[in-house]
């Protein structure tokens, strides 16, 4: 998976007097087009067998998800393992897991944009797409876990013959607003970024169908400077809006838990801790996906090892924040002197779900600490493996939070051990089918790297010399 560019960066000495090049390999405007559009155009000339194999696999899993969902809706949520007292089981775990993954895209496109972090341009498109697909997967779970999906419109304040309104004082309704706003704004942001690149695709296209499709979706973009002026302002505004928005989404998700009185859920650090965890898992997913994609499509000079290393640093930082939150929860549980709080945390670490807890701690807290070592930050295989560990760990974090607290509520008589059913597992696996199907379509038909932004970086790089 490593390339000459990787080696170049690994051996380079840091020179604080100048900024290192983000795009390597003597790229020109034209070569960037060839490299990025080539990913999509190459497919059409001779679609790789690997893509078909992967797409076939993903869409079969997606079909399986469809079947499971149909069975679920026709039968009821009883096919899942959710039952008293763990009414919030697997679906919520998966929902929070996917929403968390979805955070990286907006973070990279919006927050890093505001922080003037140019390295974002190599991975932002990719991460934004990932965000949207992850939000699709996330939205699936609350939608199907309501059981009677056909009345899901009750969640929106639409006048009706019941003359009833949703309860705006419920954090679950805040979730509806937060996640749907997030999905909408992420989609707008992604699409807006795509417009100039779709125009590039349009102008390179050779077949009528491709020309027509890209021409339609690029809305007649001509790269007019008057347009660019408003476009950049709009991009800045959207970034400014998306930044607090991305924070709000996982904050509201954390409210679902934290406004309750359940020990282990009701703790004030939940909002920032959830956000940190979301970014953590999102960046890990970016690494997991980006590493094979850059290798397969020969994009190592655009998504360089330096990019991967920066991502690993973000993972280290957010992983440490998550570790801080775990530590604070534990300390304050003891400090509180509250026997329920103390039990909740002892139970997490040493109760029936201790196995899940320790998987979580080792994947989330310990594994990213390996990124203190530059050697591991610059080793593509290590990055790949650790990113997968983090993905696993973050899934278990949500599992631990949801299940340990619920399975040991205030009433010992109702204590129980939650066990997922095969349908739980199939739904989770199926959501990956949805994710990868969308993802594979994305890399086949859309610019997976923000071409115009990379050209801007290239221009900056050139004018510095």
């Amino acid at each position, binding site marked *: 998976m490593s390339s000459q560019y990787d080696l170049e960066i690994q051996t380079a000495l840091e020179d604080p007097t100048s900024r290192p090049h983000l795009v390597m390999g003597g790229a020109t405007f034209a070569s960037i087009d060839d490299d990025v559009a080539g990913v999509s155009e190459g497919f059409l000339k001779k679609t790789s067998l690997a893509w078909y194999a992967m797409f076939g696999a993903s869409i079969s899993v997606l079909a399986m998800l469809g079947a499971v969902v149909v069975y679920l809706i026709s039968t009821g949520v009883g096919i899942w393992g959710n039952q008293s007292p763990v009414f919030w089981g697997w679906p919520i775990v998966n929902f929070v897991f996917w929403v968390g993954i979805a955070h990286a895209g907006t973070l990279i496109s919006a927050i890093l944009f505001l922080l003037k972090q140019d390295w974002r341009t190599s991975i932002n498109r990719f991460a934004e797409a990932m965000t949207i697909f992850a939000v699709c997967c996330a939205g699936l779970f609350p939608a199907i876990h309501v059981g009677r999906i056909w009345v899901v419109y009750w969640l929106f304040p639409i006048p009706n013959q019941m003359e009833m309104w949703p309860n705006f004082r419920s954090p679950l309704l805040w979730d509806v607003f937060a996640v749907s706003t997030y999905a909408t704004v992420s989609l707008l942001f992604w699409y807006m970024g795509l417009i100039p690149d779709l125009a590039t695709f349009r102008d390179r296209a050779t077949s009528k169908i491709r020309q027509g499709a890209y021409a339609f979706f690029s809305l007649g973009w001509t790269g007019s400077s008057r347009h660019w002026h408003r476009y950049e302002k709009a991009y800045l505004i959207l970034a400014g809006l998306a930044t607090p928005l991305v924070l709000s989404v996982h904050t509201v998700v954390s409210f679902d838990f*934290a*406004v309750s009185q359940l020990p282990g859920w*009701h*703790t*004030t650090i939940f*909002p920032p801790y959830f956000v940190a965890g979301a970014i953590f898992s999102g960046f890990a997913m970016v690494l997991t996906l980006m590493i094979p994609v850059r290798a397969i499509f020969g994009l190592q000079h655009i998504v360089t090892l330096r990019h991967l290393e920066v991502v690993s640093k973000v993972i280290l930082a957010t992983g*440490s924040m998550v570790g801080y939150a775990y530590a*604070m929860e534990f300390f*304050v549980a003891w400090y509180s002197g509250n026997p329920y709080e103390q039990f909740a945390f002892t139970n997490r670490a040493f109760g029936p779900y201790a196995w899940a807890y320790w998987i979580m701690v080792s994947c989330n807290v310990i594994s990213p600490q390996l990124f*203190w070592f530059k050697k591991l930050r610059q080793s593509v295989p290590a990055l790949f493996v650790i990113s997968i560990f983090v993905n696993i760990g973050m899934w278990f974090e949500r599992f631990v939070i949801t299940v340990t607290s619920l399975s040991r509520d205030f009433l010992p008589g109702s204590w129980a051990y939650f066990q997922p059913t095969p349908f739980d597992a199939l739904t989770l696996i199926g959501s990956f089918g949805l994710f990868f199907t969308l993802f594979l379509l994305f890399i086949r038909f859309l610019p997976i790297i923000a071409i115009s932004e990379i050209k801007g970086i290239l221009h900056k790089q050139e004018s510095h010399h």
Partner: protein
Amino acid sequence: MSHSPSISLEGLNPEKFTLGARAGSLVGRFLVVGIVGLAVAAALGLTGDQGDLSRFLHAYTTVYVYFTSIALGALFFVLINHVTSAGWSVTTRRIAELVTGAFPLLALLSLPLIIAALMGTAEIYPWANPDGGLVPEGVAHLVHKKAGFLNAKFFAARMVLYFVIWIAMAAWFKSRSLAQDLSGDPAITNLFKKRSAPMIPVFALTLTFFALDLLMSLDPVWYSTIFGVYYFAGGFLCFMALLGILAKKFGAEDGILSGFIRDEHYHDIGKLTFAFVMFWGYIAFSQYILIWYANIPEETAWYHEREGLFWGHVGVLFLLKFLVPFVGLISRHMKRHPQRLVIFGGWVMVMHFYDMFFLGMPSHLNTLHYLEAQAGPATEAGKAWHHAAESFASMPFGIMELACLIGIGGLFVAAVAKSFASHSILAVRDPRLPESMTFHNP
């Protein structure tokens, strides 16, 4: 495209950027003011009754955590800029490094609190003397449960540890940075980056426990996991506000850094101030809504006490510390206008003080209530305590608070001024200085 002014960065002399007597003259004056202020406060506190002692110690703590939060904000500013290899901030980073020079003074000023704890002064820390009568009966068992952590000796040891760590960090960055002024060695910059990363977790933990020790434990029953983050958010915000003010002072036409601090720097400082106004608002709201919503008595009591004092509602705090600067700083134009940045910076600094006041002083009111309950509400003494509590609640900022503010504030200004007087306030040979001089905000 307005490129940077034509200042040659070759052969800049650190001497030229040393304030010398301009700052040095402040040292003596503020030292005197500070000592007088503290002496007045101490005299009022130590010669009066239990209530005065409590008020003195609470006011002292409130003012003390306020200034410490500024120094901590400065230290974090140094750390975060190094760890992210920031280029824009180079012309302002030395200011932060010099503000951290106040840590030794702050260490010294922690002594009264350490001594109070060691002497078992329940008037400030009820846990320091669990049987001192200032712990409500119903929760005495909780205070005993926590004695493993909340005890005077461990408290003193922790305080020493915090300051050893902070002084060492601040001194290391300052001395290395000053050395780079002479050598211009880029390796130092790389070393900064390398060392600052592991320092951040250490910083986070020490700051958190400092906040827990000094502020949260004023009420030994109440707890909130986000508290450390809350204190950090406010402190860094306050430092950014101060940095904006100092940047305007030094970067103005006749300032020593004129030409080095540009509109782009105001813009970035403004953005960070704005961002941390939002972050503080976010953290404060998160803590409030979770406690408001769950409505658990042992948590809501803390906010309830705070709503009985002064402006009387947490909503007012949000309005003043969040909404006003949020609206004020939202536009690009405001951030790039140094005079307005200073106005909102000053506002934020005052509001951060109000925030610390909001965290600290209500505990004094509690103490008065305990004293009243202890004496018996019907007794003469009980009525006197009741009266004292009423009058404090109606006007909690009095001579005592003012004296503490002048005292600790004076000493803090003196320490910072001394730091400014003897060192260059510009990192003249930082390898990223050229970048800082030419960067552009979109």
